[in-house]
């Protein structure tokens, strides 16, 4: 598969995470997550075209169903049920957030991580971008106060790790991938239940209010 096409896909994935940091409405954040999951599905599909493994095709289909369709459905229902149109504020304001994002992207592309991003020299640029995606996904969980954005951030982190693994040639057996996707499905169910519980108990999705649970 054309490296430029893969770079394009990864670029969109990176931008989708960037957008998650900027998004003010939960609906937009879920759409962005669906897009990045679709990109992961496409990247996996390109692997299928190269290997012609039908088990991989099955994994692609399961990924599409769970990550792109089911996850979105879960989150949309949650938003509608509790009328969570707008996300809760962030810890850092927008300019500072952008500076941190730029910082993480620069660090991921720096020489310090060369030993990691140079696993496959041909994919160095892709791996640096995937590493940036990992960092800024983690930062999304840190910077956002609402539970929904944090859940999306964790799923986005998982997508970034999958992307990094694919481009680093660290793809595991289809059985393992299937197991991971199953894990994510269970996680989705539990996290939506938890988010509902937080909302019911605190009247908001702001996780900083959970401090009161401390002794």
């Amino acid at each position, binding site marked *: 598969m054309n490296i430029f096409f893969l770079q394009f896909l990864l670029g969109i994935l990176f931008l989708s995470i960037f957008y998650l940091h900027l998004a003010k409405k939960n609906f937009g954040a879920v759409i962005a997550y669906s897009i990045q999951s679709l990109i992961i599905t496409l990247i996996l599909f390109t692997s299928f075209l190269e290997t012609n493994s039908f088990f991989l095709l099955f994994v692609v289909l399961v990924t599409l169903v769970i990550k792109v369709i089911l996850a979105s459905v879960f989150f949309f229902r949650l938003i509608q049920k509790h009328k969570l149109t707008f996300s809760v504020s962030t810890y850092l304001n927008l300019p500072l957030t952008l500076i941190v994002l730029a910082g993480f992207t620069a660090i991921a592309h720096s020489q*310090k991580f060369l030993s990691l991003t140079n696993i496959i020299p041909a994919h160095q640029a892709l791996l640096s971008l995937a590493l940036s995606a990992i960092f800024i996904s983690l930062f999304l969980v840190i910077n956002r106060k609402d539970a929904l954005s944090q859940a999306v951030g964790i799923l986005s982190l998982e997508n970034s790790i999958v992307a990094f693994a694919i481009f680093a040639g660290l793809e595991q057996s289809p059985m393992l991938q299937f197991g991971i996707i199953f894990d994510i499905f269970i996680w989705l169910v539990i996290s939506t239940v938890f988010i509902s519980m937080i909302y019911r108990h605190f009247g908001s999705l702001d996780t900083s209010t959970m401090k009161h649970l401390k002794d």
Partner: protein
Amino acid sequence: MVNLLTTESGFFLLLLLYSLGAIGSLFFRKKDELANGWQSFFAIIGSLWGIFFSISAFFTGNLSFVAYSSVFPLLSFSFHIDQLSAFFIFVISLITLFCSLYGIGYIKHYYKKYSISALGFFYHLFIIGMLMVVTASNGLFFLIAWEIMSIASYFLVVYDHNDVNNTKAGFLYLVMTHVGTAFIILAFLLMYKFTNSFDFESIQAQAVAIPVFIKNTIFILALIGFGTKAGIIPFHIWLPVAHPAAPSHVSALMSGVMIKTGIYMMIRLFLDILQPIPLWWGITILIIGSLSALLGVLYALTEHDIKKLLAYHSIENIGIILLGFGSALVFISLGNTLLALFGLGAALFHTLNHATFKSLLFLSAGSVINQTHTRNMEAYGGLIKYMPQTAFFFLVGSMAISALPPFNGFFSEWLTFQTLLQGMTSVNILVKSTFVLATGALAITGGLALACFVKAFGATFLARPRSTEVAHAKESSLSQLIGMGALALCCLLFGIFSGYLGSLFINIGTHLTVFRNISLPPILSSKINFIAPNNFGSVSALALIVFLILALFIVVLLVKFVINRNQKTKIGATWDCGTNLTPRMEITATGFARSIILIFAGILRPSIQNEIEYRDSKIRYFPKSRTVTLRTRDIYRLYFYLPLNKFITTLSVRAKAIQSGSINMYVFYILIAVAIALFLS
């Protein structure tokens, strides 16, 4: 049969017998008598087999084998049984045999109160742990065995869990034993770093490759780790609370045997594996030994809890053992291997002797507590009338621990004295001063120990009962008497045959690497005589016993036929100054020790509190009661453990600041950790 004794199968049979005892006990959860019978049977059979096996292994030589090579490359379940290990197996088996015999009768008072099957399970597991500790030849396997021993003994300490003091004691023991284990792990890791092996033989072969600084660090870590288990001062604080908490036959095993596993590993590491060693190691151990012996007996004097008193005497005796062992290390460093061998012999002999008389004392104390339901000696008195045989056995144990001939304690302390006195002839001023200090400490310790047991025996068995419980006391059961009687006999026999035993202990030393290839001069002139090197001093056990019997015979003759020749026997009431004699007029244990405590007031920091309750608080002429409370401060707790506890608590409170309760903050920590891990990779 003989072949089985000298092979690895013989050792596995030993472990199997105890394993059957442990697992089998669990099947009798609701049948206390059957559980008691099962566990006692396997403990007795196992210990008898252990005695035969260890004697056979002692005379046949080294036995090394790998039981199972695990999937982990560094861990192998390998054993090495040389003379030193065989000696410790013998000590463990001997004490287990008599404690188990005693246990048959003793355990009965736990029926319907606590689970007898659980007691049997942990009792056997504890013995298995000790046996594996003294035979393991791989560091990781050793740590597994060490943990089995420690955890099993913890459950035995908290066995009587209805008493909140016992659970507290168990917690302290658990914390301290794991602090010690942490130091041991660090020592093993350092050895591994420079030898690439956890196998003791490999480490020994490559010990010269370990840099001096690292070797010294290993020594300090191992000394703290194994010293904590042995109960050396200042790491002893768990011992006086944990040993009394356990059932008495377990206390006897813990105090008589378990703490010696720390001594075993010190001998194994410092004298066998890490050679050559610097001079200061031996000097440090001599100083610690002196302090432990002296302070141990001083604290014992202040106690009126009979089991705590005995526990403090364990610290004292560990100190005496360390005096012999420390001398051996010093002499090795000075190149005098003969004297070193002599010092090691003294340490090993006292190890065996302390195991016998301390077990005897714990068992007889257990019988007393069982009848009076208190550990407070002030509530005893006059028990000799109700428990005459127990009193006799306690007296034998007291005489042995006080180093009175012809019992075994005298001969091992004599050997230790001889070693220390030889050290005083050294030209090195530091060595000379240390030996002078150690000799002085041992001399004072001996005197104080005697005073302490005069107090313990007098307050417990003599005079009149000081509580109603004493009047209801009955003699111990037959199995208890057999257990105590056998140990009392051992105290006497080990004394009588001290010359022969001494030659065996010297023989143990000659099989350690450091003593190999040396020609032995006639340190022992015969099998019944001890002769110190250079003919400095000697004592004959046989001559001593003949002299004592003769002296006794002459005294009896004199009293009966010369002094009382013309006197007639009259039986009447004792003159009591016209008042009724009451138990309140007796000297108490606290009163007896008071003058000695005040002499050592600088160390013990006593405080005396007088309380008077008047019949009429306004007219203070007629006191209703007077109470004098003599307390001593635990200086280790006050000046070491409490400040340490305060420091750790402050640190913990500050560290708690990172526990903000914010999920975002926790994920931020993860990000930092990931970034650092990636950066370092």
